[in-house]
């Protein structure tokens, strides 16, 4: 066993393992012994490891040479024992103001034992790159999950993934000038260059014709552009161009807002899973501040998260029914969903974007006499959803459209690091609620529930997974109300440590949401990276579409429950002036009167 001292002698690094109050002077041995697999990795990559540290509970970081990044990522991803390990995402950081270097850092969720939050951990593989040559060897050719991640850092930070199979623009539009990188610290957040419009689509393969689904299409509710290459009605290949609603939220959050303001921005990333984002972010900051939040706050958060999951799953099943022309299913699913919205309005004051969360706890207490109301609502939802499913799953035409369509095999799901219900419908046993240590911010460790997994991998399996989850969520809500502890709902956060990193995560109804936070000076955020589950699920869509009908495309796309605005972390900007402007209602009316007969 190599000791920290030996390493220091060899590489001249110091182990900053545990400055977070849990154990101040953890030796390398302690760290490596804490979780399974760490030592094995250390032995395999000893020559290339510069430093190792524990960021916080269950999150480990190895600083490695950039040359071995692909091997290290694949070592973890393809580890024979940790089958459900997935590449979560990667963070690119401009650390030039600090140490004159760029940082590229993929991280994985290592699953020693599925659904055991005390044995699994997050593995961060940090690589420094010199400021004059920010390049790193690409892993995308061997691991498709890295395709988008590497294109993203190329767009936003100007890193160069060497040997990337598809180095087109991903997030920035093709007409964005070369050499302007929004997330570099020397670029002002207001800078918005505009040049001539340009596009960069893939060639239509020979013998096929093009069906452009998007940028605006009735079957895809947000701007997204699927270019289907078809023969007759069969889909041969697909090209995706999205990120039409990139808002630059990360840039807005970094350096300008305090850590509590970012929380409210985080909640507005998504229209329907906002609370998941806000809890993830709060969790990351709480980990950094190293505070324990009160039990009651954890319970209330979990309650809200599960209520959100219930209404989102109902929303989704409604949309799925609508897309196959089964509007009765759509209307009834949304009718059943509505009482949940009324309930959360009672509990928080808002139907959506609850504004309920704050770093260190929650802002509103759950009044005791509301408990009964919560139980009544979920009870009714359970009964009504059962009836609904009875009818919908016995509608022959609906089953015919969903069964055996859009199959995503386990291997492909793993290669793309697909998350959430989409992954579970393909047989992957992952669920961030139990996989990773959510217990610092949520109460999932104190409730009992099952994680439904299906093996079929088709659209029907995704419907069933979500519906099973919905019933589990109702069961969780009942347990939470039953076991709701008393006490405070908020712990004040003191000063945040400077330039420390941590990850916050939740399992949204679409999959795992992660928020990576690196603190800056004066309680500000230096780097904030958001990754919504759709970011991992969307690249797998072309794989699901191939070989099926154009008619199936909307349903297959919807079956991952895509949320483009989450993925694109997207402010509406006037293209001509680059300024933000919103029409008032009076102006809007005036415009429509002026242009009468034109539209």
């Amino acid at each position: 066993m190599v000791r920290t001292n030996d390493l220091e002698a060899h590489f001249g690094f110091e182990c900053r393992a545990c400055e977070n109050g849990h154990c101040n002077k953890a030796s390398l041995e302690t760290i490596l012994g804490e979780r399974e697999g760490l030592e094995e990795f250390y032995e395999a990559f000893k020559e290339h490891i510069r430093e190792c540290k524990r960021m916080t509970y269950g999150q480990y970081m190895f600083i490695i040479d950039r040359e071995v990044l692909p091997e290290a990522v694949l070592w973890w991803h393809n580890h024979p024992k940790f089958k459900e390990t997935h590449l979560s995402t990667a963070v690119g950081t401009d650390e030039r103001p600090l140490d004159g270097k760029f940082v590229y850092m993929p991280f994985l969720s290592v699953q020693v034992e599925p659904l055991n939050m005390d044995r699994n951990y997050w593995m961060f593989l940090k690589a420094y790159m010199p400021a004059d040559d920010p390049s790193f060897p690409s892993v995308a050719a061997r691991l498709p999950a890295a395709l988008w991640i590497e294109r993203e850092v190329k767009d936003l930070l100007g890193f160069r993934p060497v040997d990337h199979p598809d180095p087109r623009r991903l997030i920035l539009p093709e007409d964005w000038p070369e050499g302007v990188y929004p997330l570099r610290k020397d670029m002002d957040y207001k800078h918005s260059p505009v040049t001539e419009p340009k596009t960069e689509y893939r060639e239509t393969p020979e013998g096929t014709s093009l069906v452009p689904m998007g940028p605006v299409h009735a079957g895809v509710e947000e701007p997204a552009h699927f270019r289907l290459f078809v023969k007759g009605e069969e889909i041969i290949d697909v090209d995706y161009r999205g990120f039409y609603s990139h808002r630059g939220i990360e840039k807005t959050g970094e350096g300008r807002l305090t850590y509590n303001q970012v929380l409210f921005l985080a909640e507005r990333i998504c229209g329907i899973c906002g609370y998941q984002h806000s809890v993830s972010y709060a969790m990351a900051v709480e980990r950094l501040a190293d505070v324990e939040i009160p039990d009651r706050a954890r319970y209330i958060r979990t309650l809200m998260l599960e209520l959100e999951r219930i209404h989102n799953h109902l929303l989704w099943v409604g949309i799925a029914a609508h897309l196959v022309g089964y509007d009765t299913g759509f209307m009834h699913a949304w009718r059943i969903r509505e009482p949940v919205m009324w309930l959360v309005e009672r509990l928080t004051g808002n139907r959506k974007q609850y504004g309920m969360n704050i770093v260190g706890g929650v802002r509103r207490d759950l009044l005791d006499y509301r408990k009964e109301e919560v139980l009544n609502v979920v009870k009714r939802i359970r009964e009504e959803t059962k009836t609904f499913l009875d009818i919908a799953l016995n509608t022959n035409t609906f089953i015919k459209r969903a069964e055996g369509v859009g199959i995503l095999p386990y291997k492909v799901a793993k290669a793309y690091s697909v998350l959430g219900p989409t992954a579970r419908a393909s047989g992957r046993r992952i669920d961030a609620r139990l996989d990773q240590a959510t217990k610092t911010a949520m109460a999932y460790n104190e409730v009992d529930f099952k994680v439904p997994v299906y093996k079929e991998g088709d659209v029907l399996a995704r419907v069933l997974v979500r519906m099973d989850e919905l019933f589990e969520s109702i069961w969780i809500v009942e347990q939470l109300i039953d076991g709701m502890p008393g006490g405070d709902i908020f712990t004040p956060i003191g000063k945040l440590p400077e330039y420390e990193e941590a990850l916050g995560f939740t399992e949204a109804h679409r999959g795992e949401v992660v928020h990576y936070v690196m603190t800056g000076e004066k309680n500000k955020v230096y780097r904030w990276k958001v990754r919504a589950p759709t970011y991992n699920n969307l690249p797998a869509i072309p794989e699901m579409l191939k070989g099926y009908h154009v008619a199936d495309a909307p349903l297959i796309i919807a079956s991952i429950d895509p949320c483009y605005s989450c993925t694109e972390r997207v402010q509406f900007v006037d293209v001509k002036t680059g300024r933000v402007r919103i029409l008032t209602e009076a102006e809007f009316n005036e415009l429509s009167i002026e242009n009468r007969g034109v539209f």
Partner: protein
Amino acid sequence: MEIDAVKLGFSLVGIILLLFLPPYLDGIARRVRARLQYRRGPPLSQTWYDLQKLFALPSVRPTASTLFTWAPYLALASSISAALLLPYGNVIPVNFGFNLVVFFYVVVMVSVFLILAGLSVQNAFSHIGSSREMQIVLTVEPLIAILYGVLAYNAGSLSISEIVRNLHPTPSVLLTYAILAYALYVESGFVPFDVAEAEQEVIGGPLGEYSGRLLGVFYYAIYIKRFALLWFFVSLLTLPWLGPIDTAVKAALVLALQFLLTIAFYPIIAALEATNARLRVDHIVKMNVRMFFAGLVVLAMAFMGW
């Protein structure tokens, strides 16, 4: 001369019915669907209001093709002529021998103009919609032809007026009714067979490039076609079994019965629409082919005198 006045009167009632009733029938369907979906639903005349609005708006023409402009009007003409070939009471406004064959053709022409309209523009979705419509027409029309054949063989005539007078109740005719109900439902393009105009998949298909007046005319043609098919079915169902219709009063009663049955069938159709998801075109083709072979069996039964 008195006979002529009665005939004129019934023809006039028929024309009024075929022009004004179809949008109201759609209104009924919308209302029924809404109720099944826990909604209030629009007023019964909503489809009329929609059509009025469309008729008042100019159309955008994305192509120089005159076919694009003419197709809706030709489709409308076809569906009106189809409806004119049907019995209202005991009067058929346009009556001649072989008019069952003409009825078959003019109904198909509505689909044909829809297909041509879809192919006259540069739009992948229109083309997909047209090709779907074509697949449906090509598989369902042989089935309908066979069923018409059974009816014509049974009644010994190709004229609709003769058929409704001379149909004998045999097992093959009963089976023909059942299969015909399916075939005409498919031909009418109700859910789950509305794949050609599926909003979520092909954004309206052949109608995707249409707007304003031309779109309104197309919709109107489709409503009248649906009405004609249903009225034809209802006539086949009732007229042969009511004995000779020789007085004007009895004819009026028969017309009232046809009218009521047509209205009564629409909620059933709406309920079927509301409780089904849209099928895929390959499912529909498969079903139609199966039904075609069932139709052949029925035809064989008819020849054997069953």
